[in-house]
């Protein structure tokens, strides 16, 4: 027997397919948890990569963005297309929803045209069987000149057959095709003409792309490919050919190409697919009629959203508390490494700066995991598309997609998961607008500020309405800002607004948990890098320059903390800022607390506690409220809340905006614009209020 280790082969396989074709399920089935999520260079489209092994071959799988086509009109389609052209994968696995084959094969015809070795995966073949579809797989495989593997991704059926087919097809390599989409003799004649000129005048391009594919793309008026052509002669010939075809068919040539591709597909389907059951209306139509109902749709949606919210923040509160305790204990344990009572800088940096700062962010991890669990379930069942349909009527008016509502709602809990949640939005201007206005939704941390200030300044009867007012102000401003952004900086269509309503499906535990784990990991990575850095900077600002020990002699702990903060960099900045915030009705104390609030909104309360020397504000809210009552008028109190609501999103939000938009520019714009808006609005409110009250 031969026991020597055989030389391993490495192959690269791209996984392509329509959204909702079960592409991710197949990808997960093949790779398991051996995945790496990143971004395609320069864009914020997610790139998933994974590895698996079959026999002596190591297979690297790339999950291409889910697309219906391979035109140059959308970023995702361009990415998928360029990957296939530029990276030369050994083969492409095209995942097809077997129960919806005609539409799915449209992408296949374009992959065939690119002449890459191809394997077709007929996924969800169990559902197709239930619907009465009978495939003559051999015949279809012959017509499409690609091996076909039937799978049920959710049950892991077909994995070994598929891996075997991948290895074999990769071994065979590229082969020229006999069958191809025929576009009719008028178009074929034009294609031939263009091909021969291309071969003569653009040999480099032809070598890279194949002449037929180039000719098809040129006649389809594909911007990306047309711009590659240097030869004026070729350009002129193409323009003339397009004009001829346009007159002949009274239609844009690209539409004819699309029609003929569907013609090719329906020809193949008629030959090789039989439908044994005539199903006109299935259950899903009935369910859709209820879920997208004019009057019922909205209440049902709100109910689901309530459940998501409840799950994320109410159920999430328990593990959050455990994490808080864990970090608390970690802080005490680490602090105990130093002798009691000693004033040690490294200890303070470690305990207050790093453990406090990063821990304060990591405690939100349960919320993030639960939220993405809920989102994954909503998406995988197919409900998300219906929710978008229901909300679209309202969101459309402010220039946003129906789905934008979901992250905005999450924003009432915490902006950070909300911004991560905008990944459900495909359209970029839409997504960025949503990200930019999310901080205007009063998050949980701002609720702690309201909870401190409202009872301090307003009689019990006013407290409820006051809280409600704060939330409403945020929502109204969010709506206005979204509308303004969509009309100015982030113009563009509200997406084309054609969206597939995928069939209802049972989500699988595996898919949902993989999704959740990826999001959680991204969040943790952020906490360990950017947020760690900023926490350290803020710690320095709060603790330097140091106050000499003799200056603090005779003071109790609370008083000493007050003096330390006053003389720290942060306190000094607060004082220096005082003239700037005075028109808003704030003094230096509020100013200092506001700087602290940049780290996290709830720090505002803690900082006020230190400044008013009442120790831990959370433990004695009443004594702090009394001091605040003496120091400020209700109008000032209201203005403080207003400013906290609108201004400067916390560092975790800034970091997340940077990550999700891919640009510091947007994060800085968001921070600056919101702060400027907070300033102007508070200024107006304070001055008009002062005028009216006196």
């Amino acid at each position, binding site marked *: 027997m031969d026991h020597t280790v055989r030389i391993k082969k490495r192959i690269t396989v791209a996984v392509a397919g329509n959204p909702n074709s079960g592409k991710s399920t197949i990808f997960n089935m093949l790779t398991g948890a051996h995945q790496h999520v990143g971004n395609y260079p320069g864009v914020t489209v997610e790139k998933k990569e994974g590895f698996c092994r079959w026999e002596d071959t190591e297979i690297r799988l790339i999950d291409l963005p889910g697309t219906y086509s391979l035109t140059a009109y959308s970023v995702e389609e361009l990415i998928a297309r360029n990957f296939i052209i530029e990276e030369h994968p050994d083969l492409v696995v095209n995942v097809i929803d077997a129960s919806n084959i005609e539409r799915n094969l449209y992408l296949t015809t374009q992959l065939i045209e690119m002449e890459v070795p191809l394997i077709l995966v007929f996924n969800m073949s169990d559902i197709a069987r239930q619907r009465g579809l009978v495939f003559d797989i051999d015949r279809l495989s012959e017509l499409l000149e690609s091996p076909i593997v039937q799978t049920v991704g959710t049950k892991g059926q077909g994995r070994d057959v598929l891996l075997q087919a991948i290895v074999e097809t990769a071994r065979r390599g590229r082969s020229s095709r006999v069958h191809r989409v025929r576009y009719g003799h008028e178009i074929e004649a034009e294609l031939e003409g263009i091909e021969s000129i291309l071969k003569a005048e653009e040999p480099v391009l032809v070598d890279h792309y194949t002449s037929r594919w180039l000719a098809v793309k040129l006649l389809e008026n594909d911007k990306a490919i047309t711009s590659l052509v240097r030869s004026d002669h070729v350009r002129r010939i193409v323009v003339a050919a397009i004009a001829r075809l346009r007159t002949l068919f009274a239609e844009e040539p690209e539409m004819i190409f699309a*029609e003929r591709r569907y013609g090719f597909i329906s020809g193949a389907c008629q030959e090789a697919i039989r439908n044994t059951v005539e199903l006109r209306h299935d259950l899903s139509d009935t369910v859709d009629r209820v879920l997208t109902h004019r009057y019922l749709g909205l209440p049902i949606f709100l109910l689901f959203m309530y459940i998501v919210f409840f799950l994320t923040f109410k159920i999430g509160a328990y593990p959050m508390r455990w994490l808080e305790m864990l970090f608390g204990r970690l802080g005490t344990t680490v602090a105990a490494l130093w002798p009691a009572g000693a004033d040690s800088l490294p200890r303070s940096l470690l305990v207050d700066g790093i453990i406090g700062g990063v821990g304060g962010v990591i405690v939100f991890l349960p919320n993030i995991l639960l939220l993405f669990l809920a989102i994954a379930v909503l998406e995988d069942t197919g409900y998300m598309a219906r929710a978008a349909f229901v909300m679209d*009527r309202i969101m459309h008016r402010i220039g946003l997609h129906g789905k934008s509502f979901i992250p905005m709602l999450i924003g009432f809990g915490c902006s950070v998961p909300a911004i991560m949640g905008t990944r459900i939005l495909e359209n970029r201007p839409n997504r960025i607008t949503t990200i930019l206005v999310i901080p205007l939704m009063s998050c949980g941390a701002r609720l702690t500020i309201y909870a401190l200030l409202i009872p301090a300044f307003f009689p019990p009867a006013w407290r409820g309405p006051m809280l409600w007012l704060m939330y409403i102000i945020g929502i109204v401003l969010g709506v206005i800002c979204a509308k303004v952004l969509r009309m100015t900086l982030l113009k563009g269509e509200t997406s084309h*607004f054609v969206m597939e309503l995928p069939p209802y499906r049972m989500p699988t535990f595996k898919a949902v948990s993989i999704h959740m784990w990826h999001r959680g990991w991204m969040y943790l990575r952020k906490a360990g890098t950017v947020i760690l850095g900023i926490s350290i900077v803020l710690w320095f600002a709060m603790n330097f320059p140091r106050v000499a020990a003799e200056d603090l002699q005779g003071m109790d702990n609370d008083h000493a903390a007050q003096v330390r903060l006053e003389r720290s960099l942060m306190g000094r900045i607060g004082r220096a800022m005082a003239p700037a915030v005075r028109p808003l009705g704030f003094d230096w104390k509020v100013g200092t607390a506001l700087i602290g609030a940049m780290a996290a909104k709830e720090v505002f309360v803690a900082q006020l506690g230190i400044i008013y020397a009442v120790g831990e504000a959370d433990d004695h809210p009443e004594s702090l409220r009394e001091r605040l009552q003496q120091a400020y008028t209700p109008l000032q109190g209201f203005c403080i809340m207003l400013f906290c609501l609108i201004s400067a999103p916390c560092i975790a939000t800034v970091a997340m905006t940077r990550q999700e938009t891919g640009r510091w520019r947007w994060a800085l714009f968001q921070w600056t614009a919101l702060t400027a808006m907070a300033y102007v609005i508070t200024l107006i409110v304070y001055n008009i209020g002062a005028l009216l009250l006196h």
Partner: protein
Amino acid sequence: MDPSGLNPDKEQVKPLSKVKAGQTARVVRIEAGASANARLASMGLVPRTQVSMISNGHPGPMVVSVKGAKMMLGRGMAHKIMVCAASPQ
């Protein structure tokens, strides 16, 4: 011969947005601009395709079924898709 295989003059051509729920229509032409045309085509909406209206709730978007797949269509988009009554097949 009419190369598109359609003879729209004989039938009444109207925008898809006017089709009532439960009715089926045939696409005659799509005038939504290059980018939207391509998007619609990739989802199965090309001339000569049958479209059935699942729900058409004024004034919002509508749900249609094309080639066995359901999709939501914005009203503005549906205005640009011209259809005629489906010929019985």
